């Protein structure tokens, strides 16, 4: 990725003061740019100005942070966030959602279009972009729906939507059931451009399902949402994408069968990218035995340990190139009901890095560099420049304390909703400062900002 491209070329954020900041003796890690080691990181006028020997950089009046023992990464990018605006601002809005993103170390997010009403006109996109320029702590890209009203019947005005600034298209929350509509969207992509992101679920196979189909659903008497409802739909869309030579992004992969389909499609040259969510990488359907929908009911559902292992393998070998939170805020009233009645979805922006660091990196399942690479891997599938620490680039930096322990939910959330799957867990690793699009987007309150000696 060339270093003169900025997130704000495509995404919208509230304008603020460009950061002037020196991170003294920070441990820098950007595996894609090949940066690894203890340095002074100098951010000047919102750009990475210099990587200097530890303690050697000339602050030149900039704020200095003592970052000894702390890690600085390229900030993260989440291609799958529900900001619930317009229509469901009691769950989340642009301001609270992007604050949550900043607190999680994200420098950019992509908002889903399954709002109420769905984002399916150019006027919707224009209004949302304006809102982001007024309220967003981190840059946001807005998707539009593939079909009008997410009804799966007719295509939206995709060219006009792109002209208005839609970053891509998705009916996320629902699959595109009709294969012929799906095919037309893929054909039309050659005209309008833009990624098409897919929630893959055969609604006939998953009908009524509220959790993974298997021994746990059998024991609980809950209707199963079988893995094959996901994998068969992915297989259909891979075939269509191959036939039309179009590209697709598969959202929230959950099943080992799906991983196999994506891996085979990639090997066959299909233009396909894929994401996995932290909760699918950490939890299994065993959690559902608690019958707690607030933390453990989401779509697609938590699956078997063998599925979780397959997702981790796919993360390692690049079959899955990015981690996406599928941050799905819900009001308590929609979750304080029996499991089958509760809304699908959990929040994830504020905990994604810490949870994956705690559950995958610390036990040695994956290494830190891979996690950092995948946490920002969601930019490329949407043609967004990958955040980097390379000199000259727009500053997008997450400063983290990898030893800090904290209990999720103890200090509340930046998000308006509290349906975090990680609530109550003690995690190791915390984001202290986030620089997004060259601006300081977040500072942890308790992180004292002493001037470095």
């Amino acid at each position, binding site marked *: 990725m060339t270093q003169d491209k900025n997130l704000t070329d495509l995404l919208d954020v509230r304008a603020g003061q460009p950061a002037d900041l020196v991170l003294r003796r920070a441990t820098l890690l950007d595996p894609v740019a090949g940066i690894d080691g203890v340095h002074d990181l100098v951010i000047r006028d919102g750009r990475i100005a210099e990587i200097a020997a530890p303690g050697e950089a000339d602050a030149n009046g900039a704020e200095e942070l003592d970052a000894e023992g702390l890690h600085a990464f390229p900030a993260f990018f989440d291609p799958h966030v529900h900001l619930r605006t317009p229509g469901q601002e009691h769950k989340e809005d642009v301001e609270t959602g992007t604050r949550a993103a900043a607190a999680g170390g994200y420098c950019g997010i992509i908002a889903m279009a399954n709002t109420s009403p769905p984002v399916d006109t150019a006027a919707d996109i224009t209004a949302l972009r304006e809102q982001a320029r007024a309220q967003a702590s981190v840059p946001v890209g807005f998707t539009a729906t593939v079909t009008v009203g997410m009804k799966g019947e007719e295509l939206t005005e995709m060219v006009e939507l792109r002209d208005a600034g839609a970053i891509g298209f998705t009916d996320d929350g629902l699959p595109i059931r009709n294969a012929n509509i799906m095919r037309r969207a893929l054909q039309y992509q050659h005209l309008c451009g833009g990624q098409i992101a897919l929630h893959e679920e055969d609604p006939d196979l998953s*009908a*009524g399902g509220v959790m993974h189909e298997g*021994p746990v*659903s*059998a024991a609980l*008497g809950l209707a199963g949402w079988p893995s094959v409802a996901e994998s068969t739909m992915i297989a259909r869309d891979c075939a269509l994408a191959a036939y039309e030579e179009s590209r697709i992004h598969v959202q929230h992969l959950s099943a080992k069968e799906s991983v196999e389909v994506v891996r085979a499609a990639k090997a066959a040259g299909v233009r396909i990218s894929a994401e996995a969510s932290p909760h699918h990488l950490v939890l299994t359907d065993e959690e559902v035995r608690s019958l707690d929908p607030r933390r453990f009911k989401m779509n697609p559902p938590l699956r078997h340990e063998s599925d979780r292992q397959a997702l981790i393998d796919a993360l390692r070998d690049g079959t899955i190139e990015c981690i996406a939170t599928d941050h799905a805020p819900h009001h308590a009233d929609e979750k304080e*009901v*029996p*499991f*089958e009645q509760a809304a699908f979805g959990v929040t994830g922006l504020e905990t994604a890095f810490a949870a994956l660091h705690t559950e995958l990196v610390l036990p040695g399942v994956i290494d830190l560099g891979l996690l950092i690479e995948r946490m920002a891997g969601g930019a490329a599938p949407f043609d967004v420049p990958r955040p980097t620490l390379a000199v000259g680039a727009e500053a997008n930096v997450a400063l983290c304390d990898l030893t800090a322990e904290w209990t999720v939910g103890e200090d509340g959330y930046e998000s308006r909703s509290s349906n975090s799957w990680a609530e109550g867990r003690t995690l190791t690793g915390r984001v202290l400062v986030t620089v997004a699009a060259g601006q300081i987007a977040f500072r942890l309150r308790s992180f004292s900002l002493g001037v470095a000696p």
Partner: protein
Amino acid sequence: MRNLLSIEEVDRDAMEAILDRAESFAEVGRRDIKKVPTLRGRTVVTLFYESSTRTSSSFELAAKRLSADLVSVKAAGSSVDKGESLKDTVATLSAYDPAAIVIRHPYAGAAQMVAGWTSAAVVNAGDGKHEHPSQALLDVYTLRRRLGSLEGKRIWIVGDVLHSRVARSNLIAFQRMGAEVTLCGPPTLIPRGIEELGCEVTYSLDRLEEADVVYALRMQHERMRGAFVPSLREYAANFQIDTRRLGPRQLLMHPGPVNRGVEISGEAIDSPQSLIGEQVAAGLVVRMAILYELLAGRPERPTAIGDGPAAAEAAAPTIGQPA
């Protein structure tokens, strides 16, 4: 035991204790005055979000036989019709300071949630397709009376296992009491992975003669979405328990209500091997025993006025004296 939410959490000793208690209530039931003062002055609420004949009537009668004050709320005709949430309904009913709430609900985990919202003891009278622990206890009671013990007995549960909370609770309870359980039904009505609960699964009645007890399940049309079997006629042809398939030494059970001529033939229902009537009778005494176990051993909380220890003593459980 604070609540009865699932049979999963009731160990064998606790089950035996409830069954022994039920035996003593059966003795009370043979007297002229069938009422004991055990729960005098305490309130039992039954809250039914689904239709029920046996379970609701037997819990209500059980509460009355124990001298409790009873409030029966049915979803139809209550504020639930007006859109009140479960949480708000429970908060409303909890304002009466009930000793127990007996709840039936169409969704799994409802009773467990209610237990988190109230200080009353909560009894799960059926939550969706999940569990029906009082049914499991009364079925074990019925079998124990007839067979002495379930140890080593082979029990076949036949029919619509997928939609059956009775199948799930009974499978656990029968196994815990030492029986070997086989689940039998069409593959579309056997939940994938259920064999991990330690039972055998078969799709044919061919080996039915192995069974000591045949437990037929109701075909639950009301819970079915989509065609799970081609027709009830074909289902009956392959899985109906009739007097031709049922041997003379095999016992027949059913949780009711029966679809006559579907899962069981009329002759089989009325045959001497049928325990269906005994199951209903057992329902009353077992539910008395459940309320007793949950409430009698648990002293009433002192009220704001402060009843003092004397009142608590007066409310202490007594059994055997007519009210």
